[in-house]
């Protein structure tokens, strides 16, 4: 039996894998920015008094949440070019990732906004503040900080699930590992190493989120 782990080979492929990790991180962060902005608008739209806005938005959120990210990636990657919308795979992947997780963050916003004390709304209405001032000055500043742990968990989730972007040829960490595997006929080191890299990023991040959670739990 050969050596369990060929460390020279590990050192050789590490730079390529780190390059893949960089793409993963870029896709995650760009997707997260989309998800955070989109989630806010979805949450506000679903609170609309107008059923013609809140109902369709609710249906869209339910639909996106009930279908796999992988199929959504395929859908956008293969269907959009049929209508003349051509984008690099990375852009399609990032948009789909942001859209998918935007429906999840919208639920975080919804819960966060609901958690703001009712008296805050009443006081704002009594003082005749404009809606813009009520949202940006009173409600959101109180609603958003307690959401950080939940949003952090989705950021970590996006980081891990972005591996699915390999299905639409984005050379992120996992595809890099698989390509190295097929080139060298060695799968043990690249795929194990990719898993270790995912863990090395996501585990400390999860610990930070846990500490945040504990802090908000205490301050409540």
């Amino acid at each position: 039996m050969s050596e369990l782990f060929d460390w020279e080979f590990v050192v050789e492929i590490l730079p390529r894998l780190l390059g893949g990790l960089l793409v993963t991180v870029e896709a995650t962060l760009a997707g997260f920015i989309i998800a955070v902005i989109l989630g806010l608008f979805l949450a506000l739209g679903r609170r609309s008094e107008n059923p013609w806005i809140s109902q369709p938005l609710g249906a869209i959120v339910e639909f996106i949440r009930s279908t796999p990210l992988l199929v959504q990636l395929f859908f956008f990657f293969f269907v959009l070019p049929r209508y003349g919308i051509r984008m690099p795979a990375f852009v399609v992947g990032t948009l789909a990732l942001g859209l998918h997780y935007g429906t999840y963050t919208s639920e975080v916003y919804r819960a966060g906004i609901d958690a703001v004390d009712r008296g805050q709304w009443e006081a704002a209405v009594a003082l005749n503040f404009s809606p813009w001032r009520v949202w940006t000055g009173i409600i959101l500043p109180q609603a958003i900080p307690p959401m950080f742990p939940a949003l952090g968990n989705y950021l970590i989730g996006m980081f891990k699930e972005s591996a699915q972007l390999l299905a639409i040829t984005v050379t992120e960490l996992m595809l890099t590992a698989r390509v190295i595997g097929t080139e060298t006929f060695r799968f043990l080191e690249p795929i194990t190493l990719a898993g270790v890299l995912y863990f090395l990023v996501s585990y400390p991040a999860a610990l930070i989120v846990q500490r945040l959670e504990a802090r908000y739990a205490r301050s409540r």
Partner: protein
Amino acid sequence: MQPQSTWVKSRNYVFWIIGVLMVGVAMGVSLLANPPETAPFDLLPAILRGLGVTMQLTAGGAALALVVALVAGIGRSVPNVIVRTITGVYVEVFRGSSVLVQMFWIFFVLPLEPFNIELSALQAGILALGLNVGAYGAEVVRGAIQAIDKGQIEASVALNMSPALMMRRVIIPQATVRMLPPFGNLLIELLKATSLASLITLSDITFQASSLRQTVGRIPEVFGLLLVIYFLLAYPLTLGVRWIERQRKWAS
């Protein structure tokens, strides 16, 4: 409920514009589409040929996940440090990366030296799904056990129950009620994650749709139909979870 007042209404036009724009874009896209020669439903049987595999993956993965979640969740709640460490490492490792990474590892690495464990693609898929979802399920189990009132445990000790009897008669029945909704949500995540098995050559519904894309084309119909199928499979589960949550709210 927030106070509904006139100012909310005055901003409605913003949402109207967004809504109209979205409908407009959707209509534009569908107008640009090549009119399909036949109804999209003729593609349905070909996609549904993969339904059996999707169901096998879901059922097998869920069964494995349930067992693993109970074992690891209880293991993380016992006083024994060794058991707690082992189950803790399992949970953190499998939550540290995604199902896809673990599926690839099991499918590509396990058959090689030094493991030499030959698994069929279906076994690899079920193993990856079960172990991954099981790790999340273990946290649900642990949380439910921790949430049980201390007095219940003290009463069991006072009644001289053995730890096993206390688990079976006191802790598990109460924890089960608490675990049902999160388990339902995990089942939905599991069902969606079965689509990843198409990437390790398993011919589930996603795989069938991908091969239709290559043979028949008609891409918007194929993937549109696939999305609807997943929605029809997953949404009843979502409704079920909400129903259970409502029952619980009434009960308490």
